[in-house]
């Protein structure tokens, strides 16, 4: 005995088989317990699937409360995620707004302080060499050791 193909049992449950094929299958199902049992399962599955109705009556909203609830929850999560991102960005901007002027004015304040004057007299080795202490010889002097007299 040739058993019914699975896809034909599905189409039979869907009511989409041609009359000839449907009659042939009905005849087979009356004789074959295995195919009949299979068909009963397929038909029951088909019917259960019908429980999920989607209605788009008003602006596409579902009549199924669970289906409506899911997008709302999703929106809420998206909003929370976006808000969290916004808060981080705002905090960063606020930190920059405080740090940049503080750094700028701190720098200005520190450079305004009077410079530490170097010794007014030339170092001993310059005098020992009998050299003039003008600015032209400043390259001989070790850094920070002496500040040449301007115009000298």
């Amino acid at each position, binding site marked *: 005995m040739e058993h019914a193909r699975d896809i034909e049992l599905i189409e039979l449950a869907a009511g989409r088989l041609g009359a000839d094929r449907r009659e042939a299958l009905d005849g087979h199902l009356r004789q074959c317990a295995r195919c009949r049992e299979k068909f009963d399962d397929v038909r029951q599955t088909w019917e259960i699937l019908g429980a999920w109705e*989607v209605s*788009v009556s008003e602006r596409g909203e*579902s009549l199924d409360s*669970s*289906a409506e609830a899911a997008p709302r929850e*999703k*929106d809420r*999560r998206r909003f929370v995620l976006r808000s969290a991102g916004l808060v981080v960005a705002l905090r960063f901007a606020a930190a920059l707004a405080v740090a940049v002027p503080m750094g700028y004015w701190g720098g200005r304040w520190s450079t305004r302080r009077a410079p530490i004057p170097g010794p007014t007299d030339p170092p001993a080795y310059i005098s020992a060499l009998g050299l003039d202490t003008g600015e032209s010889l400043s390259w001989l002097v070790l850094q920070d050791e002496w500040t040449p007299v301007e115009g000298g």
Partner: protein
Amino acid sequence: MENDSISDAELMTRVGRGDMTALGFLAERHRGRVLALSYRLLGDWHQAEDVAQETFLRLRQAAGAYEPQSKFTTWLYRIVHNLSMDQRRKAWRSPSSLESVEAEAVAPAQEDPVEKSELAKLVQRALAELPQRQRQAVILHRYEGLSHEEIADVTGWSKSAIESLLVRAYENLRKNLLEHRDFSS
């Protein structure tokens, strides 16, 4: 109503000539099924709304070149299917959406005392657990009433692939749903 007697193909021809009233008639006639299919494929009303709007935009753009070779609804379903899959890919790429898509797929339901609603949630969950192509095939077959040839037209898959997908999908659904036989009685 006068527009009820005008065929989809005729309306499309008018849209191709720039008749926006005809586009309105088409949208009014098919918006529900476009939205329902997209929602079933995506599981998200907002994304489904986006897809519906984009579908009618595409329809307007393509109207000039439209030739009624296949059934209008099959052609329309192809647009909806492709846009929904694009939307799904976008959603999976976005980390925030990924979280919610997974959450909806695993647990789409909230508390509801009505038994039918419980069963609907069970069905939704069982469908969400199917591999993507099986789910698409079942949605087009069971809920949109498309034949194997029409599903092939919409998805671009071969007829034999569709039959195989449908058999496996209904078998997976049977295993999943009939464990809860008490719901169906």
